């Protein structure tokens, strides 16, 4: 008899908590992993490079923006972001971001990685000045 009333009590508690269930629903683990990976610039950059290599360019853009928000001075993320815009055919946007980054200390290989996607369209550097 007591079991029956205990079950009734638990059912009541469960019903009262039911409306809250949706709020605690799980975000897909893959989405959680995307967020966790960008907590640190190094893992975020690695994720973005994997996404670029896989052709998931818009996902890579969102990834790099998370890295930049986590660390606004993450120059490598900003450089990769600028290069990614070029891959997405936003060449003016890429130019704007590269211009802001000019003057920072980046290894040449990193610059090449960022600027090669727009190599064909780039205005050649001046000579003789």
């Amino acid at each position, binding site marked *: 008899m007591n*079991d029956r009333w205990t079950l009734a*009590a638990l*059912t*009541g508690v469960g019903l009262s908590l039911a409306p809250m269930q*949706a709020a605690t629903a799980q*975000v897909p683990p893959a989405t959680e*992993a995307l967020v966790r990976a960008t907590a*640190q610039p190094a893992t975020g950059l690695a994720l973005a490079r994997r996404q670029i290599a896989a052709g998931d360019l818009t996902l890579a853009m969102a990834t790099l923006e998370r890295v930049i928000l986590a660390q606004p001075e993450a120059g490598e993320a900003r450089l990769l972001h600028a290069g990614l815009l070029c891959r*997405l055919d936003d060449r003016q946007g890429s130019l704007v971001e590269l*211009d802001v980054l000019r003057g920072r200390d980046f290894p040449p290989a990193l610059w090449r990685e960022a600027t090669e996607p727009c190599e064909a369209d780039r205005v050649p550097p001046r000579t003789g000045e």
Partner: protein
Amino acid sequence: MTLPVFAPRPVAAACLAIGMTLSLAAAAFGLAAPAVVGTVAAVLNEVRIKALGMGQLRPAAIRQRLALGDQVQTGARSHMQALLLDRSAFTVGPNSRLTIDRFVYDPSGGSFSATVAKGALRFISGGRGGAGGRSIATPVATIGIRGTIVDAVVGENAIAIARGEREVGASAGGDPATASLIVLRGPGPRAQGEVTPGAITVTAAGRSIDLDRPMQAVYVPGPGAAPIGPFELSLPGQARINDLILPPVAARPTETMPYPQPPSSDRYRRRYPPPGLIDGPDQPARGPDVANPRIPIIIPEEHDQAPGGGNDDPPVD
């Protein structure tokens, strides 16, 4: 089965009655907790969330669930990114207010509608593009999205940036609370990878304008005003929007660079000064592009990591 806990009859009856009442009331009045639509993916400085039907704004934290109807607000010098279940993302700039009004989850590209009441944001379509209907509303325009990246600025900054555009004009008007500037960022037709070119349709005052190339923009000055555009956003205009959506890059000296100067567009360098935020009276517009005077943008100069802002997560994976 024997349960370890026994409830006296009156207590159990009360629990059952209360539970049923709450559950029925929630169903009857739509009080059930809204569905989760995504998660807070990045936080910089002051970001707060007000749940649907709740009066209080609470500080946002990374990996906090975002539910339908949640209102996200960013403070000065503050940014956030919301990652939706279909991996679409909103990157939100300072002094912004965003609400996800509708969301239907589909791993290949869900459908949703969102509202940006003020501020600046960038929407980045998740994955390789879905077919679901997606739209973003500003106070004066609706943006129909077809697998794309789009920037939207609402308020005084929209007016300031639009006035720097030749096609809008420095004397153009605008409602400081609702004026909206909308820019398609891509992907363009020459995008690499398995990316579908994006497009948007901006509708305001009964008129619709299609944008299908990166940097095409539309400006809507205010309620009932006809949209102006499409026009190609200038490089300074884009620089200003970038500085609203992402934290501005701090200026760095160039004299001591150990590496060679990277290749650059000197044409752009000559025409425009490096993108800054505010020019003082002793810094007149430089270069030949007098139609694009540098216009102050209402954003801060520096960013501080908020204590406990949620960016101190340990590395995972």
